[in-house]
């Protein structure tokens, strides 16, 4: 089956990004397709490469970059990103900034849109 994922909250602060990551992992493991992952609201903070968590903690941005490296389209909403200071220069590789139309395309082009947030 074809899924898209919508993530609405920032990293570390809320568990949403962790839950979404585990969902994506399980879906891939079970042979499903992830059409795309879209970050909106504070979710845009998930992909800043400037984050430097304690060495014994997970690096949430790096994790998304690794998912992106598998060819999964990871899109950060440009309007939400601009007002929050997430620019093309500071996002991790294998992610991109684009418009809300991408969320619509993902939603329409998938069997399920699964939302994680606060």
């Amino acid at each position, binding site marked *: 089956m074809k899924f898209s994922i*919508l993530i*609405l909250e920032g990293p570390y602060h809320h568990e949403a990004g962790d839950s979404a990551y585990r969902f994506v992992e399980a879906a891939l493991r079970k042979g499903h397709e992830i059409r795309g992952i879209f970050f*909106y*609201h504070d979710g845009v903070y998930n992909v800043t490469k400037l984050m430097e968590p304690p060495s014994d903690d997970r690096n949430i941005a790096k994790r998304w970059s690794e998912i992106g490296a598998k060819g999964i389209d990871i899109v950060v909403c440009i*309007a*939400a990103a601009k007002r929050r200071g997430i620019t093309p220069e500071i996002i991790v590789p294998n992610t991109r900034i684009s*418009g*809300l*139309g991408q*969320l*619509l395309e993902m*939603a*329409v082009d998938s069997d399920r*849109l699964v*939302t994680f947030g606060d």
Partner: protein
Amino acid sequence: MSDEEKVSKIMFVNRRAPHGSIYAYEGLEVKLIMGAFDQDLSAIFMDDAVLALKKGQDTSELGVKEFSATFRVLEDYGIEKIYVVEESLKERGLSVDELVIQPEVIPISKVAELMEQQDVLLSF
């Protein structure tokens, strides 16, 4: 309707109050953008989202944008079916004539049925 031009039924399920958090405002941005595409769009306002539709909002002293008037143009943006949940209004002491738009008032018992008719549910 051919497979290439598949029209999806997309419903915006709004549950948040305005101003205290950005959900209602950024949620409205999504509606306006998606309205530009040719899909079957509808919106439901329940829980605190009915407060976003209250008439007479004046944010000038807050220094933030007043966007409740924008709900009036949703229809022009292709969101023709707009519902508001009766119980949510009642709990907040509101009647539908106090709202900036006049959506169809439905009982909460009808929400699940409407949700089930959709291909995509977006909640902000």
